[in-house]
């Protein structure tokens, strides 16, 4: 029972660590990893709290949600990676370029 809360706290921690890395890092691959860590944190909260009443009969609905979430995450990651590669091919760097001068007079 306390393990459920303990893992859920770890999930909240993962979400926070991922969000921090997403904001702090400029490299796009790093940001993609950060998004994935955030997602894992959410999934961990979902699954951990499903075992609050003891581990014997966990609630299957959060498990199904997590599997859906994992598949969505891999789809988003694939699209993000290919966009990153294309942007790197255009600019030579895997970071977001700053705004151009002419856009902000």
């Amino acid at each position: 029972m306390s393990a459920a809360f303990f893992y859920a706290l770890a999930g909240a921690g993962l979400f926070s660590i991922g969000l921090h890395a997403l904001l702090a890092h400029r490299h796009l691959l790093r940001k993609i990893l950060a998004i994935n860590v955030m997602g894992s944190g959410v999934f961990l909260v979902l699954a951990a709290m499903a075992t609050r009443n003891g581990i014997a009969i966990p609630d299957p609905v959060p498990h199904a949600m997590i599997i859906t979430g994992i598949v969505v995450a891999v789809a988003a990651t694939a699209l993000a990676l290919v966009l990153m590669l294309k942007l790197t091919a255009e600019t030579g760097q895997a970071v977001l370029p700053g705004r151009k001068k002419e856009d902000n007079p």
Partner: protein
Amino acid sequence: METLIAGAIDVALALAVVGLAWGALASADLFKAIVLFVAFGLVMALVWVRLNAPDVALAEAAIGAGVTGALLLAAYAKLRAASPDANVARAGGMRGIGSISIRILILLLAAALGCAVWTLPSDYAGLGKEVAANIDRSGVSNPVTAVLLNFRGYDTLLEVMVLLLALMGTWSVGATAPQRETAPGPVLDSLSRLLAPLLILVAAYLLWVGAHAPGGAFQAGAVLAAAGVMLLLSGWRLPAALAALPLRLALAAGPATFLLLAVITVLLEGRLLQLPPLWAGRLILIIETTATISIGATLIALFLGAPPGKEDRQ
């Protein structure tokens, strides 16, 4: 004693997960970061086992760590080919006040989340009872499969569309620099010859067993994709004759079957995806079989990046 050991394992796993995530996001070397991230995924799979979520553990190991790891490493290789200095990411772009205020905000967020989680009621009012009460009419006995393919099948219908959409998006962005081709060598060649059929067999087993034990279309599709990626790495390419229409048919077959069934059920039963209990088991198997093929094909295509026949035309 036993609860003490179990508690120690839980603490170790939770700390390992957080530590690996931290390491993956903080390490200066990008390659190391990816390797740590894959390790993070594998330890997460162990956490899912501890939380009695074996279906999720399989999905995490196969998709979260496996396929995502392969995608990340392939992208890393292309990135290094495109800009050789891309390896070491310059440390965070934020300095000074911006960085400090972000850290304070994140700490506040973490504290608030911790408080919200900690004060959740400890007697649990999930949907486990409803699932158990209706599982006899779902056509399968694995509750997670029942939720994924019957009770909340509509989510899954949209989810397979998300996966296909990611591929459409990937193809529309266009091909990037092709991967450096190295001769596969005899070891990789014989390994893939041996493993590919075995992996296909494992995928079929996972697909079939999903009805009553952990497993299912997504896990099976990921294993199928592993076989495909291995064949790609040892130099195999889709024959040109199959690259256009047949490939697209294979990619769309799963989502199309699912959607067709949804339309038929709305016509016959009145509700979208209402599977008659007598037929539900067989219908779910049909959906899952075609979905496995399409998921596997989609994941392989995502790994390749560009539609077959176009990757050389850079």
